[in-house]
């Protein structure tokens, strides 16, 4: 691993200054579970690592029934899972965040890091997308907001410009008759990386028969985690039956752009998208009906 310098600022302003000074050669360090491995393999090179874990705002979780959930970018998955409101009100988020590695990885890995790593297979990202989460980004010119679905632009590349820092993720407050679910497929039971993944969010009609609105997002089957607009739109207004699930699955299979690699083949991934979208939708519908336990 190439040598680098390390700073651990305690404020967003200092962190942004340091990142701006370092430019392309500086990178924030959150949990490090992806970044340190990439540095060791020479996949990334840096001169500066800016440890953001000592910035209080980035370590904070807040929940308010009217405002929703705000998760600091350096909050670990373990902390997220221990927060009572997260697992109660955002079980779909926990579906994704809770399976990033085993407990030792959970103790370091962060939601912000998973997003900023921008791996096509990032497990928490489809869940954040279907939940309508928004990124708050700090820079020298102030802060800006970007929806999660627009954050990743290519494998391991994001909209963050040099000197910018992801501060937090905001999740809208949970609404009645809504539910979300994320499922992935891995060869092993857990401690594995997705061959394909699918998240679904639905809002049901008052009689719970119809899907009023839905969002479907996929992982590991496109250059970035993918919001499938066609499938999301096709579900709106439909009776929540197997036929409509199958149609959403078909549209998602059409929209995905899988590649063949060591983890899976194109036909397998496209097939799995169909299976997982249906299963995730069933899970989301059950949650919207209050039938599925929260975790």
């Amino acid at each position, binding site marked *: *691993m190439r*040598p680098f310098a390390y700073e651990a600022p305690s404020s967003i302003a200092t962190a942004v200054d340091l990142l701006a000074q370092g430019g392309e050669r500086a990178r924030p360090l959150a949990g490090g579970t992806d970044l340190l491995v990439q540095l060791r393999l020479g996949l990334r090179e840096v001169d500066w690592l800016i440890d953001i874990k000592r910035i209080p705002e980035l370590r904070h979780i807040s929940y308010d029934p009217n405002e929703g959930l705000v998760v600091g970018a350096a909050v670990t998955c373990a902390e997220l899972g221990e927060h009572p409101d997260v697992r109660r009100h955002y079980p779909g988020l926990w579906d994704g965040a809770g399976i990033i590695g085993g407990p030792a990885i959970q103790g370091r890995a962060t939601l912000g890091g998973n997003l900023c790593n921008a791996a096509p297979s990032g497990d928490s990202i489809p869940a954040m997308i279907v939940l309508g989460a928004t990124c708050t980004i700090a820079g020298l010119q102030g802060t800006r907001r970007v929806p999660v679905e627009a954050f990743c632009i290519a494998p391991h590349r994001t909209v963050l410009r040099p000197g910018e820092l992801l501060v937090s993720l905001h999740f809208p407050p949970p609404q009645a008759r809504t539910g979300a679910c994320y499922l992935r*497929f891995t*060869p*092993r*039971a*857990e*401690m*594995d*990386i997705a*061959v394909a993944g699918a998240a679904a969010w639905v809002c049901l009609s008052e009689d719970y028969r119809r899907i009023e609105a839905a969002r479907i997002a996929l992982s590991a089957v496109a250059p970035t985690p993918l919001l499938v607009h066609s499938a999301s739109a096709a579900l709106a207004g439909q009776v929540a039956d197997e036929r409509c699930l199958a149609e959403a699955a078909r549209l998602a299979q059409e929209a995905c752009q899988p590649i063949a*690699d*060591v*983890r*899976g*083949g194109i*036909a*397998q991934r496209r*097939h*799995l998208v169909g*299976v997982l979208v249906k299963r995730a939708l069933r899970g989301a519908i059950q949650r919207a009906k209050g039938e599925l336990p929260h975790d």
Partner: protein
Amino acid sequence: MSHQGTPRAIRGTKRYTVIGTRPPRVDAPDKVTGRAIYGPDVVLPRMAYGKILRSPYAHARIRAIDTSQAEALPGVYAVVTARDLGQTTDRTAQVGESSVSFKFLCDNNLASDKVLYVGHAVAAVAASSPHIAEDALKLIKVDYEPLPPVTDVLEAMREDAPLLHEGMYTESLAGPSEKPSNIASYFQYLKGDPAQGFAEADVILEREFRTATVHQGYLEPHAATAVWSPDGFLTLYTTTQGSFDARAQVAEPLGCPLSKIRVIPTEVGGAFGGKNISYVDVAAALLARKAGRPVKITMSRAEVFLATGPTSGSVIRLKIGAKRDGRLTAAKAELFYEVGAYPGSPVGSGAYCIFASYEIPHGQIDCYDVVVNKPKTGSYRAPGATQATFAMETLIDELAEKLGMDPIELRLRNIAHEGTLLVTGNRHRSIGAEEVLRTTRNHPHYKAPLGGPHRGRGVALGYWGNWGARSSAMINVNEDGTVTLTTGSVDITGTRTSLAMQAAEVLGLPLENIRSTVGDTDVMGYSDSSAGSRTTMATGIAVVEAAKDVITQMKARAAQLWGLPADKVIYERGMFRANTPDGIQEMSFAALARQASAMGGPVRGKGDVNVRRWGGAFGAHIVDVEVDPETGKVHILRYTAVQDVGRAIHPGQIEGQIQGAVAQGIGWALYEGYVYTPQGQMLNPNFLDYKMPTTLDVPPIDVVIVEVPWPEHPFGVRGVGEVPIVPPPAAIANAIYRATGARLTELPMTPERILRSMGVI
């Protein structure tokens, strides 16, 4: 967990005091506290850190190596290449019981003229820190001439395939091949007349099977620390299964007398056959000599995958014929085993095992050892047997289905016995194959309901021949009546405990009075590698000899004390006794030990053996799986492993061995395999994409120990560790078939392959 050899299965039961109990392992306290010193844990004063530069090409000629910039980097103490080995012409070198090519031995340590796989060692650096050593590697300039690689065994056999060794001709009893070839050797076994056997068959089945290259997956990477004395003596601390073989593998390339090398084996963090071959010892020794200070080399995980000795990928063509009543009439196998860069795959043991379970009147086995541009394969737990058994036991299951027979019944109808003449020409001596099968058939698991859809149950039978060979043991009697047992056998499975138990049984002493240790190459007589499931068996015999020697010597001392001939003294349960003119004399072992050394010098028993008769063993496994019909994911619901161990010295350790082997077998069956690009780049040299089973992938494994004692071991030990990795892939394939209707013929049986076989994708 049950230790329940059925009464029928246990022959000649004897009551023992220590054998068959479950004392705490002697190595456990150091291991649970982090005090045990493994290869990477060795630290010496002034120690430097070594790193190895490895080939990015699967096949290339080395035109030149320029190390000058690396040597100039501050903090670098030494850089070495194959030139530092100063090798000249090829000759035969001896390592253990094997003859190996001197050039191949040297070249696998540091490539001289060609690199033959990605990860092949080219140069090594010693520096003041691992990071500086890595920085220095980037400064070494190697001028390669890339050559086309070949990584598939069948492609490598084609006449127009790129040649790894331009001067290599196929070795065969039929005479060498006319032209150079990647087929390093060819052998054929023939019994009877296979054509006639197939003509007599009512049913003939034929399939081709493939298995991927898989790795032992030990968690401790290879590591060695070398230090030279000014007068030219080398001390090497290394993680190895055989300290004497490690010594030979360093002595040969360095041209150093064996007496000038002391190998001190460290605690071994898993080996499974993968730590018989030296990969970093020679480089560490060369660097240490050049740097004039101790040098430690520790491999990274990627290096372990790329540059050690996984086991062969294979292609197996198999054909069997049987009568309607299930009796086998003929069997024919072609085994094509990849050996990696240099000759010597386990294809021979594959041949020994493929038909070893059954009476087969007519048979033929053709074995091909084929070099490809992958790392030179090493041994992996019953080397060669798992691939071959996957093929045979899958086809036997298919035969049972075709004939409408119970799969265990079909196997029993053909089962091999003592005296069975095998296709390989040898005859089984005492074996427990039938006892194992009957115990398996009677196990509640075999009859239990499957309890749901998409579920299936598979069984498979596996054989491994085990090993004997050379062992050295020494027992020192201490002045307080305790004893110190030292052997030359590295402990990779808990043998310090199982050997001490055998000593305790013979000596009639409590186990806690026996300190059990591993001696280094300066201390002990030559001991073959702890391999082939041999240590509790063969070193056990050496220990029993040493213990008997102690008793003989102690009896002589007692006799001297009592003024009697030695043969008048008897020894029982820790007491020496004799009828003397003054009445019955008695003295405890401890009381005699206090006086013994003063009487005639220290009492030290020794046992040095070369065990030439060893007992093969069988295991049968039952597995239930559930297959997700939409994703092809296999969930293992229940697993039972039945095995003949001869005699269970420590049932707890045996259960652990068997459970561990089954877990490895599950990995081999479902998840594990090297994945290569056509250019010979391995795509998954890490634990994320080389997927070993976790706690969630392995069910609790029920172990049933059967004891059919091996008559040539004092307690009946056969050996345990290897047999249980042989049946799992076949058993799981058969279970998947019963769950899905799809016959899987390629390992690993990934969800993708299962979906394809089911016609889903």
